[in-house]
């Protein structure tokens, strides 16, 4: 049934532990339910009816940072929000990844002024940058798929 029929009689599959873990990790990402501004609305669209992020196995948004391993920084980060964002990041258990969604989170976007952190990579390490103001849901999905590829190739030793 299922997999065996499709692939034929595969017998024994050998792989490295690193690859097996990377494969498992990349397909069960739990993003944090954490929206900041405009991009958060597009993030909602991504999870909702038309785009349906659950097709890629990551619809399980967690409201608590303690239960999530992906932080999608969706929107502009103000100077007042920056310490909060860092606290949330620190509260996430390892292994953890960050996607900077949108121009504001990536580089400040149109707001080159006193109030906005010019790129969230000033405060947390970013794995994938998603361009757009706001990025279309397809763009965000592409970004998440890129992150999946990245996780698959990550060495096991990276997260102690």
């Amino acid at each position: 049934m299922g997999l065996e029929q499709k692939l034929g009689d595969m017998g024994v599959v050998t792989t490295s532990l690193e690859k097996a873990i990377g494969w498992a990790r990349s397909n069960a990402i739990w993003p944090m339910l954490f929206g900041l501004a405009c991009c958060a609305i597009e993030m909602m669209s991504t999870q909702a009816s038309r785009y349906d992020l659950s097709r890629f196995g990551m619809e399980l948004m967690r409201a608590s940072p303690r239960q999530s391993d992906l932080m999608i920084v969706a929107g502009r980060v103000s100077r007042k929000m920056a310490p909060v964002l860092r606290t949330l990041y620190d509260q996430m258990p390892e292994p953890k990844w960050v996607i900077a969604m949108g121009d504001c989170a990536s580089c400040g976007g149109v707001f080159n002024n006193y109030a906005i952190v010019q790129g969230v990579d000033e405060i947390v390490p970013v794995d994938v940058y998603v361009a757009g103001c706001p990025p279309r849901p397809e763009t965000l999905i592409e970004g998440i798929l890129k992150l999946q590829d990245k996780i698959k190739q990550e060495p096991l030793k990276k997260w102690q």
Partner: protein
Amino acid sequence: MAAQPTLYEAPESVLTESNVQLDITIEQLKKLVSPRAFTGETMLLNMGPQHPSTHGVLRLLLELDGETIISCIPDIGFLHTGIEKTHEGKTYSKGIPLTDRTDYLAPLSNNMAYVGCVEKLLDLEIPLRAQYIRVILLELTRMNSHLVWLATHALDIGAMSVFLYCMREREMILDVFELVAGARMMTSYFRVGGLWRDIPAGFAELVQKVLDIFPQRLMEYEKLLKDNPMWKERTVGIGVISKEDAIAYGMTGPSLRGSGVNYDVRKAYPYNSYDHFEFSVPVGSNGDVYDRYRCRMEEFHQSLKIIEQAMKRLPAGPVMVDNRKVAPPPKHEIAYSMESLIHHFKLWTEGFSVPEGEAYFAVESGKGEFGCYISANGGPKPRRVHFRAPSFYNLQALPKISRGCLIADMVAIIGSIDIVLGEVDR
């Protein structure tokens, strides 16, 4: 070693500057919460800024007696973007994209307030076709804003499927925006003096699709919520604000009309030829969460009515004023005429000048009266731009509304006043 207070002996103060973590002193906090909070009799609970039901990055400091809210202190500014200040360094036409990002659920309403204000300063008469197209898009924007409100409000209270339904219909409206402006959310389609361009082919069909499908979809939402006993239990009689209080706090929009005040900028100060259309303003009576919900649901029908009228009577003609001081020369002219090229270049680098003076222009956005105030100094950049954000005024009534409510009702109340933090903090 200091003596440890026994269980029955209340300590002098359980609140210190280090464990409150507000940007205020203990002296200031004393004025905001009751003295009982300092003896540990009541509890201070922090809600947000990362909370799925605060609709963004709102932080609330709640003082609780058991489950009852005694006082609520909103802490805003987590999304302060400096939009008003940034406007001062931009020419008038380059300021339009910034307005999209204040209330990001109703970008076209914000565009309208801003360009309306500049047009008022310039004393421009907008072609009728442009006005009608604006009305169609403004009403679609209102529906878009209300759909996100309904989706998140219902989700907060626990109705998951409404969220999926609303987002499905929202995509239809975003398709219209994408067709006219090229972007789903940040449209920046309105220009000072009219529109960026005329509506492309296929616009009428897409809008007609919205008009055809919405009445039955609205019935679906009503079936799910209107008479649902669980929904009514959570909303009827919850978060009541009286007519007088609502006016005193400066509330506008459906949050004000839910309390029974018939105030709508479209009727009171018609702009953009809104007086050409027939529609009514739904008004509630009890001022509770349920009435505010009813008001917004009725507004869907009124918006559809306005769009239908505007589509039927859409006049032909230009969509931009004929005034070359403001309007750019048409593209085909730029290719052949040196003067037009220079003119276009000047308009995009230096910008047009606006005569000295000040103006206030208000529109009825999905949330309430969204106003724009511009103080012009005669140059191509404004001296000061200020937005009257309806969410900001609606939010300041939250402590009043939530006093005496249960903590579980807090999310229902926040949802019912329909705040967008991008607009509150700007």
